[in-house]
């Protein structure tokens, strides 16, 4: 396919379909993440990239035979690997026998969370999640380091403003609908953020949804309008603050005599400590994810505005 727009759309559909698969396989938390990240924000970011590169692939098409061979070998090996796998849903598969029973039986007493996925994600394997937040932070810093544009002359700014003025005065229905939708999207993001302990959700999804609201605003009303509301330095520092909040919880548990990220020592009652710790770290995740997404979007589309 030569049309990059179609390619991106296909990827979005792929993300949505995988999310549906995950729902069928009873992994709703994963499905939610895949829907918001795979089908949602990454499609959006890729579309922003397509506006920079142009819609059609140009130049000679080379046919990399070796790449195809490698793909076939990899695919073959993957299928070969499935031959001896335990059957899907089989109760005596090792994954259901070894570590999982403790998560299923004891996580309620140990962490006080009804959602087992969140208890594994945020507490038992909380350090991995910390690492993942840092991965996102690193991505944001990488984009900032490579794409930040220096200060531009006023002429460009005026021209860009007039282009955006034309574009954004015309789509009246779109603008009104967006204005109606944005508060609800933000509210939903907050719900997802704080409901992660009880149902599917958590900082990652909430951050992405929150960022989607801001990106929607910027797309419909123009980047310069959005910049009046959103301070870029603020978002840069917010992404750091999210990581620091997460790590800070860990450092406080160190100072209270526990191990890094041991929430039991955060309060007198271990379960209350777990609750407090998880609430704080999820909030840190949300801050970093939302601000990094906004940073990436603004830096991508900022380049288009001032070519």
């Amino acid at each position: 396919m030569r049309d990059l727009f179609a390619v991106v759309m296909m990827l979005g559909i792929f993300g949505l379909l995988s999310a549906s698969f995950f729902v069928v396989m009873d992994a709703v938390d994963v499905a939610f993440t895949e829907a918001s990240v795979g089908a949602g924000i990454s499609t959006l970011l890729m579309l922003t990239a397509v506006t920079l590169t142009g819609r059609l692939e140009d130049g000679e098409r080379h046919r990399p035979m070796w790449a195809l061979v490698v793909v076939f070998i990899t695919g073959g090996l993957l299928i070969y690997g499935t031959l001896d796998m335990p059957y899907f849903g089989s109760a005596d598969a090792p994954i259901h026998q070894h570590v999982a029973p403790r998560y299923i039986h004891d996580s309620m007493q140990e962490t006080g969370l009804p959602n087992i996925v969140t208890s594994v994600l945020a507490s038992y394997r909380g350090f991995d999640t910390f690492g993942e937040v840092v991965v996102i932070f690193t991505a944001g810093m990488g984009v900032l380091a490579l794409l930040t544009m220096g200060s531009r002359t006023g002429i460009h700014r005026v021209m860009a403003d007039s282009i955006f003025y034309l574009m954004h005065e015309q789509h009246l229905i779109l603008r009104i609908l967006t204005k109606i939708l944005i508060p609800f999207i933000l509210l939903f993001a907050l719900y997802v953020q704080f409901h992660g302990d009880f149902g599917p959700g958590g900082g990652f999804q909430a951050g992405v949804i929150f960022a989607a609201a801001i990106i929607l605003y910027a797309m419909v009303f123009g980047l310069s309008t959005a910049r009046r509301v959103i301070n870029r330095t603020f978002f840069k520092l917010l992404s750091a603050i999210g990581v620091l909040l997460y790590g800070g919880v860990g450092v406080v548990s160190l100072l209270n005599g526990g191990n890094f990220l041991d929430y039991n020592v955060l309060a007198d009652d271990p379960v209350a400590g777990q609750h407090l710790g998880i609430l704080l770290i999820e909030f840190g995740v949300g801050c970093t994810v939302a601000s990094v997404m906004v940073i990436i979007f603004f830096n991508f589309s900022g380049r288009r505005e001032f070519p």
Partner: protein
Amino acid sequence: MLIQLPALAVILPLLSAPLCLFLRRSLLAWLFTVIASGLTMLVSITLLQQVMASGTIVYEMGGWSAPWGIEYRIDKLNAYVLLIVSSISTVVLLAAHTSIEKEIPQDRHTLFYVLYLLSLAGLIGVVITGDAFNVFVFLEISSLAAYSLIALGEDRRALWAAYQYLIMGTIGATFILIGIGLMYQMTGTLNMDDLSRRLPEVAQTRTVFAAYAFIIVGVCLKVALFPLHRWLPNAYAYAPSVVTAVLAATSTKVAVYLLIRFTFSIFGISFSFTTVPLQTIFVILGLLGIFAASTTAIFQKNVKHLFAYSSVAQIGYMIVGFSIGTTTGLMATLLHLFNHALMKSALFLALGAVMYRIGSAQLSQFQGLGRQMPFTMAAIVAGGLSLIGVPLTVGFVSKWYLVLAALENGWWPVAVLVLLGSLLALVYVWRIVEAAYFNEPPAGRGAVEEAPLGFLIPVWVLVTANIYFGMDTRLSVQVAQAAAQSLFGVSP
């Protein structure tokens, strides 16, 4: 507080990175980064002492015991690699302030240090952890930071080089992830220690075989083992000088560490070396790598490219030592990890000094530099001698043990080939010496001054280490031997 040291080794650089973002001034950010990296080095030194004195340290993240939670498990092997990574990072960092002044625009200095700290934290996190999935997470941190750091190079080709590395590195990381997923499916655990106990039961299944294949290929991409090395030369050549120095010395070493960890500790020697014909494949690829890359290095016009190809060749030596499959062979690999990190950081940092003064690393520009930058060129010659493996340098120590291991095993053709490979190193190092000392400076180039002290001090610290550890081998040999023996299950 001593109990918390394992956590500190990672969270010091990891939390310093977001903090560093708040520092606007370049000098301040640099000082902060040097302090953070230096403290990490102190922590690693203490950890190594503790491990050598009293054995493996286990640290449970979040207070959850393994395999439910994530544990850090520090034995002699990773304490040793931790020391290499953190100390090289600290010494190279001393030159960063001077070097990036010329190579990176002022407004990106803070971000440079943030990414540097993230890359350091990622590498340390990969080495220190005892959890297979945690390896992947921290590998991603270090890789993403490394891609961005490389792309910051002033040459526009840096972007293309970083992109190539991004694609190859991501394929490598995905393969590792697939492998970890398959292992999890067959054992139900992600903890390395637990995996090593539960894998033998299911070792004969096709799923475990596929897992092993994916992990080995993925790690070898990161190692830049010939013929998967294509991303490396350009990435090293176009990255900012400091970044090249630190990545050349640490990131492929960490990947070699992972290779050792996965083959020896997790899958076990009997599985790795009997079920799969790994030994033969690795000896052949290692030797091919030594010869192909050294020969290519001889014909390079850019000295950064030259040393980058030489790095690919040196990785070949490490893989040969590893594939001999004896304690001495593994010991040679571990020694070469340490020694090669010392050589290449010294060499690339000295090249950074040349870049700082003449703005280019083309071999033709090196003419006459021997008299104009005597201390810098002397450092390059010393590093080059170490690369060849001349006695009284660290390069000799690792070659000695490698040849010894090959002979012990009766593989005398391998020993001969390893020595022949050193002759190739002599040729490419000689080309630089010839240009610098036996040619007149090119016409039209004005007077060139010696590099500033900001460069000379760290460069000479590293060169001195090259010579010191070449003569007093107690630290490196003892630790490498202990680590190799513990991996083979021999109690020292």
